[in-house]
């Protein structure tokens, strides 16, 4: 048996070790954020938002170049992906939360989590095999489908937990008025869970917006602006990768710019989600 003094000393030692671990993790994390902010904000300019990229020579000769086409492409591809996935993700979430005794649910839940844990690149391979190969070319459309695959499990689980937080007494009150179950779901549960559901949609969107791997195999990338859904289109994460591994110094700076946009999107969605859910469920 240790003396009390030794036990107290051990307690203090562990406390110090825990603080050390926190510092070890937090230092690189804060370093990443501050490097991205400093380097990224420095490379943003009006041209960055109003020009497309073009050839490397454009950047090297100092002619106007930017990532307008990338930002637009990201919005198009991610928006389309969200449109594809919304009914399916929310439907799956409704089944999981509103029909708790449905025989499909346990396996559905495990499957959703498994899909969520699957490497995103596999979702890209699937979209490539299903869409790019039969259609014969890389396309924005295939990129949207790949991102929809990424979003589906996230959205399903987010909708489920949003609906699960709605108290059953609320549904019972509506049921007692003689309202059929489907109307209870649409008119009571869903409106009550509106804020967390929208938050879940935004989080799924932000997660997918940061994925580069599936887009490398599907929407491929494009140095110029296009609105053709059947042609290759640029997206921020995939462009960030191409810029970062390119040999041109000017493009590296633009890569930091792309990084700060991505990080900004994630932080905004993330902080917004925290604020929205905290106010609602303290």
């Amino acid at each position, binding site marked *: 048996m240790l003396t009390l003094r030794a*036990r107290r000393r051990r*307690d203090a030692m562990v*406390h110090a*070790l*825990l603080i050390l*671990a*926190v510092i070890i*993790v*937090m230092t690189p*994390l*804060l370093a*990443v954020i501050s*490097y*991205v902010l400093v*380097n990224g904000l420095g490379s943003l300019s009006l041209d960055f938002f109003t020009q497309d990229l073009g050839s490397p020579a454009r950047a090297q000769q100092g002619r106007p170049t930017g990532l307008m086409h990338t930002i637009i492409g990201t919005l198009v591809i991610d928006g389309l992906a969200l449109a594809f996935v919304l009914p*399916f993700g929310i*439907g*799956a979430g*409704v*089944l999981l939360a509103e*029909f708790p005794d449905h025989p*499909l649910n346990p396996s*559905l839940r495990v*499957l*959703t989590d*498994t*899909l969520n*844990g*699957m*490497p*995103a*690149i*596999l*979702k890209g*391979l699937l979209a490539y*095999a*299903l869409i790019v190969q039969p259609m014969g070319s890389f396309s924005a459309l295939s990129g949207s489908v790949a991102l929809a695959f990424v979003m*589906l499990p996230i959205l*399903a689980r987010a909708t489920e937990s949003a609906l699960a937080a709605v108290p059953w007494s609320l549904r019972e009150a509506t049921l007692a008025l*003689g*309202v*059929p*179950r*489907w109307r209870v*779901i649409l008119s009571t549960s869903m409106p009550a869970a509106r804020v967390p559901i929208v938050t879940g949609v935004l989080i799924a969107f*932000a997660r997918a*917006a*940061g994925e580069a*791997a599936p887009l*490398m*195999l599907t929407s491929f990338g494009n140095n110029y602006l296009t609105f053709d859904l059947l042609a290759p289109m640029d997206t921020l*994460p995939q462009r*960030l990768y191409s810029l*970062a*591994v390119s040999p041109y110094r000017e493009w590296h700076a633009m890569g*930091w710019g792309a990084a700060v946009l*991505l*990080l900004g999107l*994630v932080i905004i969605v*993330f902080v917004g989600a925290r604020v929205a859910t905290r106010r609602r469920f303290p």
Partner: protein
Amino acid sequence: MRSVIEVPPPTRDGVDEALARPMPSRFRRPGDRAFLVLVTGLALTVVALAVAMGWVLWAEGRTPIETFGFLGFLTGTAWNPVTGQFGTGPFLLGTLITSVAALALSFFPAVALAIYTAEYAPRWLAAFIDGTVDLLAAIPSVVLGIWGIFVLAPWLRDTFYLPVYLTFARPPEWAAPVVDQLPAGVLAVLGTPQNYNMVTFTLVLALMVVPFTTALARDALRSVPIEQREAMWALGATRWEVIRRTVVPYARGGIVAGAILAFGRAIGETMAAAMLIGNSNKLPFTLFGPAATMPSVIVNEFREAVENLHYSSLVAVGFYLFLLSLVINLGAAWLQRRLTVGSRGS
């Protein structure tokens, strides 16, 4: 015990007649039934997606698997598109080494972080740390990748790789007696230092998987009933003894499941690997030299895979990655249910 109050039996006056009458249309079931069918149909796309993923990866990648054999392709060490030799060996090795190392590096800091915020930190600090670590999970891997390329890798080369390598290659006087005792293989393991190598990637990967371990460990720690702690406090235990003897054992399941999930995330990390590991298909890999992982080779070579066998070999690598990820994720789910106190046996 029997109730002493006599409750009259409910009368059924008019009930049977009421039931016999047709219900008003809005009480009828077809709406409910149609809605359930609709929702089930939408939810089944999740199942369809999972099945399609396994099936398509198999169908597209079966040629090399059948050519070289299921295990032969998995363990084959040659990957040479020019000679048509394909084997997952190098990438499997790269994935396993980096993931295990990243998990080993991140496990204790991640759990410590969870313990600190759940048990020690003042509330505002805990909220700040938790929020920042959760944010880390949301930072796109390409953003960590660009930081690794331009900040971490050059810094590590100057402060770590080169000094360590030179210590072994041309030992200074103080180190000479120790280095001379070591077998000659040390340099072969270290390899010629390069910016982008296994160590660089492993360090970034370790940072990336911290939030997965931390989040699950935190949930598990929070679910420990306060009485459990109070009982231990009442016995005069110190804070650490309470954690060590009652809190951590209770939360064991969540902590282990979080580590496994973190491992599952680590094997799938693609972009950071492609940016930081140096991308070499040739064994043997060295610590300070380039390597490759299963996802990184897919994303690197996919755009250049013009030959059919090369393409299907890349998909086959994806198929093995699918199997690996499937086993890990299902294992984590099973373990979490199994080891979580309170739901045992259910």
